[in-house]
């Protein structure tokens, strides 16, 4: 735990009855950071988020926030905000009163309340809809209300559960920009949960990739996208050609294959992975027969059958299409491979 740590989870274990959802998770977050918890459903990301809000109690471990131990502090005393996936606006209250809800509980009233609520609605650009009921708003507008409702409380950490998943593609882009702007302007520490890698890559300062209750990889978007460190992460971010290695050789169905010379591979590396775009076609020590070919807009994708097993390759368009049945040479350059330290 460094001096800069603001929110820290130490050996946090979370369980529903006897089934463990998150096992001894460690995570340190710096003030003002935007963190994404990324993973498929059931990976423990939402559970982790609920533990930070206090809606769920850890079975073991410690959570500290801003220097204070909040492990057993009830949710209503934590000063943590949460924007629900469903927004969870209060249907009987109008937009103004939804945003004012928490402030009224803090005994704020009169002019101070109005100023604060107006400020919140201003920040998300909804001042003109203050009198509407949630049912009269679009999904995007409801989300902004939920965001304003959390932000006016000046939370120490703002958590967002799948903030973009209920929006259509165009709104998603708009909201993404909006979230970044709000975070910049308010400087609030944000943690959001998502199953969509493109959201995490576009928004986050750092990404926590989770699987089965463990952290698979923690790093910047560039780290995760270009240098996945486990088989799971590599697969998740689109490295479709993944091989186990041993002593610098690829292990395949037919035995071990020597790679073409490149950067030496040390003993901690258990596997190598290539994106389809990093498979060099046309020359190289390997060869395969084209089994499939399809146009994917920006590129043409080929499926090769080779001694290494099936290989997925990609060539930028326009490209003189190889025909199905052609035998072509290809290379897997170690320089272009992601080095995986865990293969299970």
């Amino acid at each position: 735990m460094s001096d800069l740590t603001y929110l820290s989870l130490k050996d946090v274990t979370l369980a529903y009855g006897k089934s463990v959802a998150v096992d001894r998770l460690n995570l340190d977050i710096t003030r003002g950071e935007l963190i994404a918890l990324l993973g498929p459903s059931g990976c423990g990301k939402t559970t982790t988020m609920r533990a930070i809000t206090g809606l769920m109690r850890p079975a073991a471990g410690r959570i500290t926030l801003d220097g204070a131990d909040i492990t057993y502090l009830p949710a209503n005393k934590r000063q943590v905000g949460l924007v629900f996936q469903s927004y969870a606006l209060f249907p009987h209250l109008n937009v103004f009163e939804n945003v004012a809800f928490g402030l009224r509980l803090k005994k704020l009233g009169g002019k101070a309340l109005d100023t604060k609520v107006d400020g919140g609605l201003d920040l998300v650009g909804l001042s003109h809809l203050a009198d509407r009921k949630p049912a009269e708003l679009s999904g995007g507008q409801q989300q902004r209300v939920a965001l304003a409702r959390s932000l006016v409380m000046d939370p120490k950490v703002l958590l967002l559960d799948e903030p973009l998943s209920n929006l259509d593609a165009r709104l998603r882009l708009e909201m993404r920009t909006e979230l970044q702007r709000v975070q910049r302007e308010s400087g609030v520490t944000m943690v959001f949960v998502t199953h969509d890698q493109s959201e995490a890559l576009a928004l986050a300062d750092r990404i926590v990739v989770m699987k089965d209750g463990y952290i698979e990889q923690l790093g910047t978007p560039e780290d995760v996208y270009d240098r996945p460190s486990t088989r799971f992460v590599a697969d998740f971010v689109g490295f479709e050609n993944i091989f186990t290695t041993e002593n610098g050789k690829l292990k395949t169905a037919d035995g071990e294959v020597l790679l073409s010379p490149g950067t030496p591979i040390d003993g901690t590396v258990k596997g190598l992975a290539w994106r389809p775009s990093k498979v060099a076609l046309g020359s190289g020590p390997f060869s395969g027969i084209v089994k499939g070919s399809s146009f994917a807009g920006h590129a043409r994708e080929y499926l090769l059958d080779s001694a290494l097993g099936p290989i997925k390759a990609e060539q930028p368009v326009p490209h003189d299409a190889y025909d199905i049945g052609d035998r072509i040479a290809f290379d897997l350059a170690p320089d272009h491979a992601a080095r995986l330290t865990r293969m299970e």
Partner: protein
Amino acid sequence: MTGRLLSYVTLTLVLAFLLGPFLIIVAAALSAGETLAFPPQGLSLKWVFKVFEIESFRNSFALSMFLAVFGTLAALILGVPVAYAASRYKLPFRETLRTIVSAPIIVPGIIVGLALLRYLVIPLDVGIGLALFIAHTALILPYAVRVVSASLENLRSDIEEAAVILGSSRAGAFFRVVLPNIRNGILAAFILGFVTSFNQVPVSLFLSGPGVRTLPIDMIWYMEITYDPSVAALAALLAFLSIAIVFLAERFLGFSRYV
């Protein structure tokens, strides 16, 4: 064409069947004669006014009103927490709980009435008024639980968590965000409970004593002694009252969504 004619005829017959008795009662109530008869002999409002002069009607009306209002309130005070618990928590005996709560409407009223008389009023010397109150509360409870459950089903539970995160206590969240959102369901349950209690006959039949009778029982009792049109007049007045209540409930609550 013939199919259409047939459906009109059927519809008319069904309407006549449903509305006929009501129209006959109204006509009988407006009779100028001395006995309950149809067609009425002459036209007058004298029996309508007579209703308000009969003391036993006034007393039994007051008792019925009391039972309907406070029995329903008691059923709601018991029923709302039951409905809430059943909808929010995974209770181990949820279905059993629902069955037990519904039992009073499944068991025939006549048996409930007899049982209460035989095992509550007689051996324990419980007053008829109290026994009636207990019986009506129990009879309304299933409706209260069912109607309130229906409106809770439509309410997302995460708004309570949202309220808690914004600083409310768990109990506060119930009063601040759950109750206001199921208000219409509770009002609908109240109206349904009120009408059920007010019109209740079989159970109340067993639970009557000297000077303690609910209005429907008092009407039966009155008819056995005095066969004049005042009973018809009272019945017509009660019918109009019920129609007015249901009409207003439908107009302002969309009552039919809940029952």
